[in-house]
């Protein structure tokens, strides 16, 4: 049990996927302009990663490893993730319009979110068993959400701040992200 908690804390804080592992930065900058978008994106990433983590792990265990096809892992994973996300989107649009309005519209963005692909690859690289994979697939996106929502809060303030011309918008956002990253670096000693 302790191992799983350690894994979760490590994934959320110590190895925060956005600020320490540098994954998923495009939507990080894109959807952090408003709190609403940030929250929706965070939820969607958790949802999709849990699904994608399971499916890719099964693909690896059932097809790739026994057949010795590890070298085409990248292409298999991305196709699986892309098809999965698109399917969930189409399905949700029709069957769960309420959920779609809140979550679904963030789905297309996730296909090319390297955080999703990245965590799936980490799961394989670290040779997690099924349970560990589940924990990691939930904890990493939780860390993503945490950083994203915190950052959106900062950014809503920065927009009205007196920022020198050249630093405006993305530039100041990156510098701010840097300092957030610095504070997350402080968790390093925890484990």
């Amino acid at each position: 049990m302790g191992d799983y908690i350690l894994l979760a804390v490590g994934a959320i804080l110590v190895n925060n996927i956005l600020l320490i592992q540098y994954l998923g930065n495009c939507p990080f900058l894109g959807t952090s302009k408003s709190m609403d978008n940030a929250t929706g994106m965070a939820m969607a990433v958790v949802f999709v990663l849990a699904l994608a983590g399971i499916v890719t792990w099964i693909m690896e265990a059932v097809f790739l490893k026994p057949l010795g096809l590890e070298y085409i892992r990248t292409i298999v994973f991305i196709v699986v993730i892309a098809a999965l996300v698109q399917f969930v989107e189409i399905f949700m649009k029709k069957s769960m319009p309420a959920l779609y309005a809140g979550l679904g519209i963030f789905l297309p963005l996730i296909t090319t979110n390297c955080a999703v692909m990245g965590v799936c690859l980490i799961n394989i690289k670290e040779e997690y068993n099924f349970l560990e994979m589940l924990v990691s697939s939930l904890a990493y996106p939780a860390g993503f959400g945490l950083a994203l929502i915190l950052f959106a809060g900062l950014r809503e303030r920065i927009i009205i701040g007196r920022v020198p011309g050249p630093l405006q918008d993305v530039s100041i956002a990156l510098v701010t992200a840097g300092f957030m990253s610095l504070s997350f670096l402080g968790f390093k000693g925890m484990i």
Partner: protein
Amino acid sequence: MAKTIVQEFTKGLWDEIPPFRLVLGLCPVLAVTKTVANGVGMGVAATFVLVCSNILVSALRNIIPSQVRVPCFIIIIATFVVVVELVMQAVAYPLFLQLGIFIPLIVVNCIILGRAEAFASKNPPVASIADGLGIGVGFTIALGALAGIREAFGAGTISVPFSDTVIQLFGPSFQPFTFMVEAPGAFVCLGLVLAIMNLIGK
């Protein structure tokens, strides 16, 4: 509106140089710019994928049904990413180890999919090659420059791409500014470079 092939190429070097003008594909930019060798290696790999996928997408642009356009592009891109992965293992294994997970992640780099959709799927192959090459070279230059700054301040060295040579920039009394090679330094450094680019203007 029609641009010449040369213009398609050169726009990627300054006007639309990623990630500074097109703020996209940030993950590898932040992650692999600890050393110049890694940065340039990543840039070359991305350029290869970009050019190859542009050619193929452009050539197949009239065959692919629009509903499955994105999955098809992804397959094309992923194929070349795996090619890069294999070739890099064969010829530059240490670089492969250094770049690690970021090589397969080229597949989700928005720049590549973005150029496939925005440019190659609407233009003939020759222009697409020029576009891919331009953006790719621009990306490589940007990565190299950013890595240069980070490595010089963060480690006091410049590693020469595709060789084992590492140039020491400062004397032995140099205290490396480690912040620069850590994650926070990546963000701050990119932010400041972006600001300088804004200052210079187009």
